[in-house]
């Protein structure tokens, strides 16, 4: 059967060729018989993401552009790892290195470019590579060694991305650049300098105004370093040349097409042969060659229309924007930076590490350079592309788009209206830095319908959860209805490892004999053999609570804070808080703490909100020794890391205060002495205030005592956390003994009833204050039984975890140090 469909052959499966195929099948599905052929032995991938792959932040698979499913669905033939060696224009077929003969009606050249190799002496040594494809990445990984020196020649986009990738793999990188500052084509000297500083902070040294003279040999044919024209020698075990690209025109030239610097094309991307088109980095249009992705995507769009026989505008040069793809270093540049008739407006905020410069010509925005806070970049770029006279806007332009909040939409609640008025780049999730546009795009692209799905895909609201309301409002806006109602599921599944909810699990575990969390998973039919970081700590806690005497606790089922009895901080160091009963300390304790701070070089000492002293920045390997020394001075762990009793905050009460009505300090000490060491569903804080002035802030604690003349007011369920919540009044009693019994009963009821990671505030809101009152106040027998169970459990719980580990620290605390340079022969 003869097919009437055009046979279209695309040579080059890079970003231009791949984009063309995608555009073409989208525009005219099934209209053409498409074959895509690439010389690289990989599926098409996003070349601009090579740096994260080199750094180990992304997999090669994560940057794939086309999957098999796409190819099957659209009937596109993809041939990888085969190079086209010749074009027979008369017979309209090409031949390949592996001996294929492929006929075509229309041929597209997307052969891209070749990286330029400087003709320096030593350029052929082993260890000298370019940075262009996944093959280069593999070579660099095979040759690179953490801690070893590397040199990158070229401080442009590509060079800096290569440098960031190698630094991400632990190499010590020096970037050598000919010009006076890095990225001189996109940045002015000011922004270039800030960029160099930011790179220096990541361990990347930049050497500018530097001419390379020779690549040095280590005597075995491998690169040893780079010699500069001024005689300096930079050691290097790996040398990357990233000085530019040259259009790949060999095939076109051999076929007799017209070629200048690149393959000459008209505004329909047609070459001198009407049956052959070309696009991407291999072409020259209107005297220009291309290296950025944006114009190349424009070309793909134009050519796809031409191939599909659709009318439309031809390709035209447009301003382009550049972003540096190095995570954590934000640089944005667009348009032209200088010129005789250009005016400049700059804004520099050194404190925020932010800089922006606008270039204005003829009352129009002609260029923008941004460093640091680049969120407004796309808006400036749009303003530039519109090329409208700025007029009065000029005065405020440098401050970015102003968000005039529109009138609240009728029918929408306040939260929804507020979210609707936000710009796309407004930050929603402060913990994870997720902005509105990212969330709405993910909801649309992935078809997300629930808060959990948005959390999984965008991380918004996945940490502290304080933005959940905004995220839900966004979901509502995107899905065209009100925000989805919170599922009124009585006992939702703990996590995806099981269908069982917290309440069901803990009921079963109470009936079963003592066992470890991992054994319990087998018994309860878990879907994963060892659970996950959500369910395993929960099971571990439920077992511990149900079987306090059985010793089922498994450190490997605990979060690191509880495993190493210290708080992990953002830089991986830990903080240590010794217990100070009721907030009291002494000269001897303070002296011991000061000595320990000196001895272990602890950078920060802070008084916590709970009146304890926090030693911050302790190295993990020092933890056992710090604990040992604190223990030696009579202090025990303050459990500041624990899902358990943290602190009992106190005021000075009747002992010192002229308003104090009872001995609040003494009562606080008593409460802390009885309750310390108890593991709980979440952290638990107490306070005792000596009078209604409430200096100990008892009304935002899980359990608070406010002393009054006639006795003690007990309050519960307060929370100073994400959702500020004042306490609910529980009851009023007249003796300390009653305070203590009710306190213990309340804690035990919370321990036995709340779900893991549920603080008292949401727990009480879920089960109701009346139920709490009924159990721990009204029902005397129940109260006494709870208090008795708590005390029984405490007999096994009140061990100082520091003492036991400090006596015999496990291997976890000892790092393996690699000598500076492994003994080389």
């Amino acid at each position, binding site marked *: 059967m003869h097919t009437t469909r055009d046979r279209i052959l695309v040579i080059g499966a890079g970003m231009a060729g791949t984009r063309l195929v995608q555009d073409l099948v989208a525009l005219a599905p099934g209209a053409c018989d498409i074959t895509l052929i690439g010389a690289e032995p990989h599926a098409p991938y996003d070349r601009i993401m090579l740096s994260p*792959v080199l750094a180990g932040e992304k*997999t090669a698979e994560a940057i794939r552009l086309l999957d098999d499913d796409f190819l099957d669905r659209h009937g596109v033939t993809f041939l990888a790892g085969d190079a086209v060696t010749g074009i027979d224009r008369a017979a309209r077929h090409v031949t390949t290195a592996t001996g294929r003969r492929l006929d075509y009606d229309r041929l597209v050249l997307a052969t891209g470019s070749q990286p330029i190799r400087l003709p320096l002496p030593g350029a052929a040594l082993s260890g000298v590579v370019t940075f262009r494809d996944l093959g280069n990445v593999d070579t660099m990984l095979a040759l690179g060694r953490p801690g070893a020196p590397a040199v990158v020649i070229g401080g442009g986009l590509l060079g800096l991305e290569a440098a960031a990738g190698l630094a991400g793999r632990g190499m010590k990188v020096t970037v050598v650049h000919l010009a006076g500052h890095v990225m001189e084509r996109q940045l002015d000297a000011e922004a270039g300098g800030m960029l160099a500083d930011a790179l220096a902070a990541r361990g990347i040294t930049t050497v500018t105004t530097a001419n390379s003279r020779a690549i040095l040999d280590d005597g075995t044919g491998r690169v040893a370093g780079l010699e500069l024209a001024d005689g300096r020698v930079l050691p290097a075990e790996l040398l990357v040349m990233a000085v530019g690209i040259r259009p790949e025109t060999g095939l076109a030239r051999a076929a007799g097409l017209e070629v200048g610097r690149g393959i000459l094309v008209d505004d329909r991307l047609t070459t001198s042969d009407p049956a052959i088109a070309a696009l991407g980095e291999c072409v020259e249009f209107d005297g220009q060659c291309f290296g950025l992705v944006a114009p190349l995507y424009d070309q793909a769009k134009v050519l796809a229309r031409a191939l599909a026989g659709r009318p439309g505008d031809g390709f035209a040069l447009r301003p382009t924007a550049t972003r540096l793809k190095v995570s954590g270093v934000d640089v944005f540049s667009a348009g032209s930076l200088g010129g005789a008739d250009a005016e400049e407006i700059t804004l520099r905020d050194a404190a925020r590490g932010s800089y922006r410069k606008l270039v204005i010509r003829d009352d129009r925005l002609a260029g923008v350079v941004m460093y640091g806070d680049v969120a407004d970049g796309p808006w400036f770029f749009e303003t530039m592309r519109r090329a409208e006279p700025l007029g009065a806007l000029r005065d405020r332009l440098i401050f970015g788009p102003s968000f005039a909040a529109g009138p609240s939409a009728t029918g929408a609640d306040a939260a929804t209206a507020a979210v609707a008025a936000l710009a796309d780049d407004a930050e929603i999730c402060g913990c994870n830095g997720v902005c509105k546009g990212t969330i709405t795009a993910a909801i649309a692209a992935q078809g997300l319908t629930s808060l959990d799905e948005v959390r999984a895909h965008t991380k918004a609201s996945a940490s502290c959860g304080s933005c959940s309301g905004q995220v839900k409002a966004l979901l509502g806006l995107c899905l065209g209805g009100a925000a989805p109602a919170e599922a009124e599921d009585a006992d939702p599944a703990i996590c995806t490892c099981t269908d069982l909810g917290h309440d069901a699990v803990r009921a079963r575990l109470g009936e079963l004999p003592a066992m470890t969390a991992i054994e319990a998973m087998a018994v309860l039919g878990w879907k994963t*053999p060892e659970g996950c970081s959500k369910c395993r700590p929960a099971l571990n806690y439920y077992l511990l609570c149900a079987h306090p005497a059985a010793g089922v606790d498994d450190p*490997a089922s605990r979060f690191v804070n509880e495993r190493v009895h210290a708080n*992990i901080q953002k830089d991986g160091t830990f903080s240590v808080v010794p217990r100070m009963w009721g907030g009291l300390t002494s000269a001897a304790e303070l002296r011991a703490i000061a000595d320990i701070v000196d001895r272990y070089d602890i950078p920060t000492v802070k008084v916590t909100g709970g009146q304890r002293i926090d030693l911050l920045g302790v190295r993990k390997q020092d933890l056992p020794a710090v604990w040992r020394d604190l223990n030696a001075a009579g202090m025990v762990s303050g459990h500041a890391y624990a899902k358990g009793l943290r602190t009992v905050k106190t005021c000075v009460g009747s002992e010192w205060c002229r308003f104090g009505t009872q001995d609040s300090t003494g009562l606080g000490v008593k409460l802390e002495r009885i309750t310390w060491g108890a593991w709980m569903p979440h952290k638990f804080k107490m306070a005792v205030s000596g009078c209604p002035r409430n200096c100990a802030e008892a009304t935002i604690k899980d359990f608070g005592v406010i002393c009054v003349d006639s006795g003690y007011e007990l309050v519960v369920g307060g929370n100073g956390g994400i959702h500020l919540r004042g306490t609910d009044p529980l009851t009023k009693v007249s003796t300390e003994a009653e305070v203590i019994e009710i306190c213990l009963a309340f804690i035990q009821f919370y321990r036995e009833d709340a779900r893991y990671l549920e603080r008292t505030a949401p727990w009480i809101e879920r089960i109701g204050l009346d139920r709490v009152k009924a159990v721990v106040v009204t029902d005397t027998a129940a109260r006494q039984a709870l208090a008795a169970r708590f005390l029984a459990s405490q007999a096994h719980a009140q061990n100082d975890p520091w003492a036991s580990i400090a006596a015999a620290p496990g291997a976890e605390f000892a*790092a*393996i140090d690699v000598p*500076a340079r*492994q003994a080389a022969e």
Partner: protein
Amino acid sequence: MTILADMTAARADTTDWIDCGTLDELPLRGARVIRHQGGSIALFRPADGPPAAIANACPHRGGPLADGLVHGRAVTCPLHGRVFSLDDGRAAAPDRDCVARYPVAVTAEGRVLVRLRPLSPAAPAGAGLIAEAAE
């Protein structure tokens, strides 16, 4: 379960193989940190299967993965909860990050060796293990 190292391959470039002690010296369902000039590597001992080594820094915010909770052959970052496979270094969906993997070998004497050079991102899962040697 013992994996025999291909010591001929190891010997070819002994400079990069770090002796990390015996398997028993690694905490079960835990990790030790190998510190080197360019950063650190987390060497894990999952309950199931051979030990595994990955870069000790989550690509998200640099969280020390060695301090994460180990479940099966995966670890959860202690800072913000990303989950990485110990075998292929990839983050669990929908995250698409990954961490560098390092080859691990266990010698016939039970010593755990880790090679300082990361594996290529294109290397197949399990490529970190040196298969049984033909003596």
